[in-house]
């Protein structure tokens, strides 16, 4: 028998792995396996559509849009709760464990190498820019000052979109003009 008042808090409170008496034991896999909506296995019929939700097994209630709504709420709650959605724990034999570790470490090495390469590229870029500006300042004050001017605000255009795996339907637009120019042309 579950009552709604305590039900929300019970379902919705954060779970962490702990052995302390006030907790629910082991942490549930609360961070989502966000599944598509599943109908609960056992039909939970609702009676007494007052403020509280009382669940009783085996007793069927007749009709009503209110029971349907309550059933929807029950479905919603079951989506949020990690009940029966936790995957089975992986058990690895010693050889499997070694294989897993090898692959994992190799992949981490690849990721780390990529990250370091990126950082090195940015570092080189930064110092080249810095040295270029130093040289320019020594060469010509006027050119240096005009180079140091920055537009405000700096915006990247929409055409600078996130690239997709497949190309767009129209690959190249030879007659493309920036939107500001396009507006001018239309008004004229």
């Amino acid at each position, binding site marked *: 028998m579950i009552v709604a008042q305590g039900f929300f808090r019970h379902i919705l409170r954060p779970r962490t792995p702990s*052995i302390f008496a006030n907790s629910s034991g082991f942490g549930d*896999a609360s961070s989502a396996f966000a599944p598509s909506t599943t109908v609960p296995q056992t039909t939970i019929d609702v009676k007494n559509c007052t403020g509280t939700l009382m669940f009783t097994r085996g007793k069927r209630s007749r009709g009503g849009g209110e029971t349907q709504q309550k059933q929807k709420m029950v479905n919603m709650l079951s989506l949020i709760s990690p009940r029966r959605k936790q995957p089975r724990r992986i058990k690895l034999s010693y050889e499997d464990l070694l294989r897993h570790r090898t692959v994992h470490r190799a992949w981490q090495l690849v990721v780390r190498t990529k990250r370091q390469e990126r950082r090195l590229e*940015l570092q080189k870029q930064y110092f080249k820019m810095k040295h270029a500006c130093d040289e320019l300042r020594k060469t010509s004050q006027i050119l240096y000052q005009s180079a140091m001017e920055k537009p405000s*605000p700096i915006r990247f255009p929409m055409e600078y979109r996130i690239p997709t795996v497949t190309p767009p339907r129209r690959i190249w637009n030879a007659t493309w003009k920036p939107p500001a120019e396009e507006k001018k042309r239309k008004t004229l």
Partner: protein
Amino acid sequence: MAGRPHLKPASGAYLRSFQQQQQRQQNFHTTTPVNKNSISIVHPVHHRIRYKKNQLQPAYKDILNTPKWDTRSHLFRPQYTQHSRLEEHYNSTIAPDLLLANFVHDERVIPGRKRQEWDGSSPYHINRQKRAPAGSAVETPEIKPRTFKNIPALKAIWVNAFVREAVRVNQERALPTMVMMQQITGKKPRPVFSKSTIMTWRLRKNMMVGAKVKIQGPDMYQFFATLVEVVLPRIKDFKGVENTSGDMFGNVSFGLEPTDVKWFPEVEGNPDLWPNLAGLHITLVTGAQTDPEARTMLSALGLPFVGKERLYNVPSLEALEVIDRKRGIIYKD
């Protein structure tokens, strides 16, 4: 013992005056007088922690000892199962361009507003708390020179929903929005409970009135890409996020109406499942130091901006000159 009447020491370790000790021995039926010449030894207070002994059984030993990042742990959640488009685009294309765009030659640290010391004109200034910062109620961080180490990037996204019907009608009304947030972001949201009772709004304390969730990493990039490519273009009369939006330190917020939320693919696919949805507040936490920088970065990721820009916390040229003059650098015209 003074202050701890519930603790009784095993042996009387009090120093008593000889006279009082004699009195004690002689008069068994009189109460002991107040001891002014005694020392009290503080016995350790053993804090008892309640734990479930059942959970320490040998069968559970390996479960409790496997760390969270181990694949054999029940808490393990695989992270990089898919290639993240937006992350790759940012790393390969946008980061170097942002480094160039934000570069300022010979930049100095621009001090923020910090707490001030008292000048010492009064003797009461000794050991007094520092004064509030000049021109601000709170301390503001200093703006560090922009290098390859602090390029602005998307750090986290907070999605927050307040459901008005949960206050007016029924607390259950907050659940569909909460489930929808889970479907959209891929992470289970936390419920938000009200903190005060206000009768005019029919609000009680500790009522569930909404939900919030913080997403980081690949989930965050996926959510942002969906927003920018699928949801925002579908919104009617949407030109862009306001240029005035920002919290002075590089975090940008905007909101989605209940009618806009249904353009998310998870909601659009099954419209019957989502009868009453609330709108969302979306806060983009960036690593930028100022708002204009954050907006530049977000425009590179595809988020449009509209309207007149508001420049808080961005020092003017005069202010920069003042800072340099203090350090002994004077500009010659």
